[in-house]
């Protein structure tokens, strides 16, 4: 299979997905077979995708083919250059592991839902994403984009017994469809400007268009793709939609699908548009800063584990946008080298986030599968019952908290470097935007760490807080393979960050004005350092010395304290018996931060006290306190807009009054009006 060309590999993988989809649908009756078929073919297809992407990235076998369709203007044009290949690699990689995971995970749907449909939609979804990142023609792109959204919508509402899932799906589909409307408008404008729908042709014809149109296109595209990427304030669908889907799909949506929005932003802002004005980059930077900070804050206020992870996706999209934004700024300031650096950082964080976020979602899914709840407050002590899952989840938490020596650290370090170099090298306004973005990133890192101490601690540590948690068991092998591989990847990507970034620099250097520009940094296997010697880092070094220090500590401590005994005893319990209710709750853990950022989060607190003695009100029977955060966007942004439209529609409905004379009057008036209008 290795000696196929990238092109044939690509189409083979598409074919495999198609076979998987159809076959699963046909096997629909038999849950077990349908599940196996769908996921197996999913694995094989993803493998094909990986190989194709690898051949493009390393053998340089770019290709771009197009077939005529039976419709005018529409050409099925597939265009696989470095950027597409990179995203294709990410998608296929995660899809591969998600499919392995799903082999075991989907078991608990048996007999409940039709696994054939699941397999069909799942393969369709993956194929759709692959097509999105390889489509070279605007109409074709919009079609596959919609197909991807459609498949993901059906996956979100797959567990349709639950009302909330349906609601989440509805919101998601509405939002993404409105986003698509913006995208289509952007494409139409691009066509008006360039007279073509092929991205490659647009790129060449776009040179001398008036900047105002470019700005309109920029805003439209930002809104359209930002909706899919889940930037604040267009994110409202994300925290409810991602958790609703089956876990392997949540992993794909959160880890990969939202990246297609990023892909198109890069494609359009960095590749299609030659010289973008400065403020675009600044806007992207600010959006990134806001999204990252608010995303992590909302995550802290969540105690539904999947929603928490979803909010972290928003945060990480923000971080990616910080990289992208800085790259755009540098590009407009004509500093190719730094632009390449920023873009490479963004791409690397895209890859990293895909890896550890899907890992975390899978861990959460395993926990949910065993405890049948998404509420963190009902977990606890799972590290004893499901040690391996706990370990993998811990790795993921460290990676997403950007702790060395894992991959998250290096990409955030790189983005930091991009932002730092921005502070000195741009104008006054730009510098301040850079400073504040760096500040946002700094706080984001710390808050993310806090959030994952909360998530991991309340989920896996201490004592079980509910009966389900007591009954939990370790999950099946296939799930552990999926998670384990990803956990390994976080470390490998971290240690091999240098070589990987070399490749990413090549990817970034193949775009628009960055043609064969050198990066502002040297990436080596052992170390990477910025050309201006501002900073240098050696990930293997960190890992090695950390292990060394650990070993030394162990040896010394063991040597000195061999003879001291270790007793297992009960926790100091102030004389009472310890109950799970004495442990800190997730809500309690993050309460302090929420109070500190109360101005932004607007926490609400409802207390319902019930007394044993209603007249004396002295002995409390129950005291229920529910802490929430106000839905700012719903109440200030979307709510009013919706009200406005609905009021308008109420007025419109007055037309249909039911009175026939009125109806005839409309005709009459139209007639007279038109005739008069005609003469005037």
């Amino acid at each position, binding site marked *: 299979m290795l000696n196929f060309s990238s092109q044939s590999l690509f189409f083979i993988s598409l074919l495999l997905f198609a076979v998987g989809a159809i076959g699963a649908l046909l096997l629909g009756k038999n849950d077990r077979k349908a599940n196996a078929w769908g996921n197996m073919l999913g694995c094989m297809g993803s493998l094909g995708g990986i190989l194709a992407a690898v051949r493009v990235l390393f053998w340089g076998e770019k290709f771009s083919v197009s077939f005529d369709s039976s419709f005018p203007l529409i050409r099925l044009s597939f265009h696989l250059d470095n950027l597409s290949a990179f995203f294709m690699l990410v998608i296929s990689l995660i899809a591969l592991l998600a499919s392995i995971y799903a082999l075991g995970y989907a078991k608990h749907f048996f007999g409940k839902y039709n696994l054939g449909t699941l397999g069909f939609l799942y393969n369709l979804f993956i194929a759709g994403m692959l097509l999105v990142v390889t489509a070279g023609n605007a109409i074709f792109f919009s079609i596959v984009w919609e197909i991807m959204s459609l498949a993901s919508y059906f996956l979100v509402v797959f567990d349709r017994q639950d009302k909330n899932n349906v609601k989440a799906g509805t919101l998601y589909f509405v939002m993404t469809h409105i986003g698509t409307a913006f995208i289509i408008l952007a494409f139409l404008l691009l066509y008006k400007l360039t007279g073509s729908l092929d991205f490659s042709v647009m790129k060449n014809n776009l040179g001398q268009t008036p900047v105002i149109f470019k700005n309109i296109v920029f805003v439209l595209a930002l809104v359209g793709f930002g909706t899919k990427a889940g930037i604040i304030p267009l994110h409202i669908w994300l925290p409810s939609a991602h958790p609703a889907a089956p876990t392997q799909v949540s992993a794909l949506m959160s880890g990969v699908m939202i990246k297609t929005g990023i892909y198109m932003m890069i494609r359009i802002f960095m590749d299609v548009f030659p010289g973008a004005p400065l403020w675009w980059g600044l806007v992207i930077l600010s959006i990134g800063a806001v999204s990252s900070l608010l995303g992590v804050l909302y995550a802290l206020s969540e105690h539904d584990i999947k929603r928490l992870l979803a909010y972290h996706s928003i945060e990480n999209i923000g971080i990616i946008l910080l990289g992208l934004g800085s790259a755009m700024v540098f590009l407009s300031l004509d500093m190719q080298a730094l632009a390449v650096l920023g873009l490479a950082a963004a791409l690397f964080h895209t890859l990293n986030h895909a890896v550890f976020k899907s890992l975390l979602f899978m861990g959460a899914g395993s926990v949910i599968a065993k405890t049948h709840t998404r509420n963190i407050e009902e977990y606890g002590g799972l590290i004893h019952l499901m040690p391996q899952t706990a370990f993998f989840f811990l790795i993921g938490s460290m990676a997403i908290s950007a702790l060395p020596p894992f991959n998250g650290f290096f990409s955030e370090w790189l983005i930091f470097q991009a932002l730092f170099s921005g502070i000195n090298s741009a104008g006054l306004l730009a510098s301040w935007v850079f400073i504040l973005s760096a500040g946002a990133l700094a706080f984001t890192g710390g808050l993310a760490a806090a959030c994952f101490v909360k998530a991991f601690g*309340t989920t896996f540590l201490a*004592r079980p807080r509910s009966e389900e948690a007591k009954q939990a068991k370790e999950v099946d092998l296939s799930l552990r393979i999926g998670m384990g591989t990803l956990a390994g990847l976080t470390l490998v990507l971290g240690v091999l960050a240098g070589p990987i970034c070399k490749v990413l620099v090549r990817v970034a250097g193949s775009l628009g004005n960055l043609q064969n520009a050198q990066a502002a940094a040297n990436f080596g296997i052992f170390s990477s350092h910025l050309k201006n010697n501002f900073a*240098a880092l050696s990930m293997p070094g960190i890992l090695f010395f950390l292990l060394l220090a650990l070993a030394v500590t162990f040896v010394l401590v063991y040597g000195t304290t061999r003879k*001291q005994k270790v007793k297992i005893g009960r926790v100091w319990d102030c004389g009472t018996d310890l109950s799970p209710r004495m442990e800190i709750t997730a809500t309690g*853990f993050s309460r302090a931060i929420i109070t500190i950022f109360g101005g932004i989060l607007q926490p609400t607190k409802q207390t319902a006290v019930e007394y044993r003695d209603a007249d004396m009100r002295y002995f409390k029977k129950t005291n229920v306190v529910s802490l929430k955060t106000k839905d700012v966007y719903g109440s200030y942004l979307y709510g009013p807009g919706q009200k406005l439209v609905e009021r308008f529609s109420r007025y419109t409905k007055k037309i249909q009054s039911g009175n026939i004379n009125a109806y005839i009057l409309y005709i009459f008036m139209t007639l007279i009006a038109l005739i008069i209008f005609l003469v005037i």
Partner: protein
Amino acid sequence: MLILTWTIQLLAIPVLSPLFTGVIRKMKARMQNRQGASIFQPYKDLRKLFNKDEIISQDASWIFRFAPYLIFAVTLLIGAIIPIFSTYVANQYLSNFLVVVYLLALATFFLALSGMDAGSAFGGFGSSREMTIAALAEGGIIFSFLALAPISRSGNLFEIAKTISTLQFMQFMPITLAFAGFMLALLAENGRFPFDNPATHLELTMIHEAMILEYSGKRLALIEWAAANKSLIFMALAVNLFFPWGMASAGDGSVLLALLWFVAKVSVICAGIAFVESTIAKFRYFRLPDLLFTSFILSVITIGLITFF
């Protein structure tokens, strides 16, 4: 000679840290008109703890057992990559200030986890408070370093130390602002007044102590020692980045002199801390964020001054 300096560099932090803990305690005692324990008391405490048996909670997992080693190892590593007495033992691939910050974050991460692991009420809120303060302090720390980095066109701590020592007075002034910010972060990170009271086990006030409440024996020793290391690391950074005078620039006799300088400068910082701790009271928990944001803002202002003037 190089080997010697390297051994000094590696051992300085873990060896000296208990001493300075003792020094601070002594100074506090004196300022409060007490006799106070000898400045070598911390060494004795560590030895005592290492020789004790230990009890581990039945609910605790391997994280509880593993965390102390990691935390201590991290402080060792950091101790090796920051400038202590010399500017020439630069190892440029690790002594980047972001590495230091995030390695510290790694330690804090595991400290908080181990605090929650035993499942006692104290550990929980201890970790909560610790993570809150750490998260908010991070911005201040990174930015106080970032204020220095542009001046020396490098994020390498040794480079920074080198350039700062050559600054004119006028260029130097804005840095004092960043220094103030860094000091606030220092107090916060090391559980000092007005953020935390290192000497109390009163549940309303304690943060660091609450987390390690379940520890005993060698693991407690490791954690205490690591805490001492951490505070010395911060003080070393404070003196060597902001006032990097008298540091050895070559591996000759000046090393000894530099070491003396180092001890002297750190003692001054210790005095400052002791003074603060015996003059002001601990702040209410929800007033601490103001301080931390202040430290961040101070550093931001510094950056503004440096980049635009």
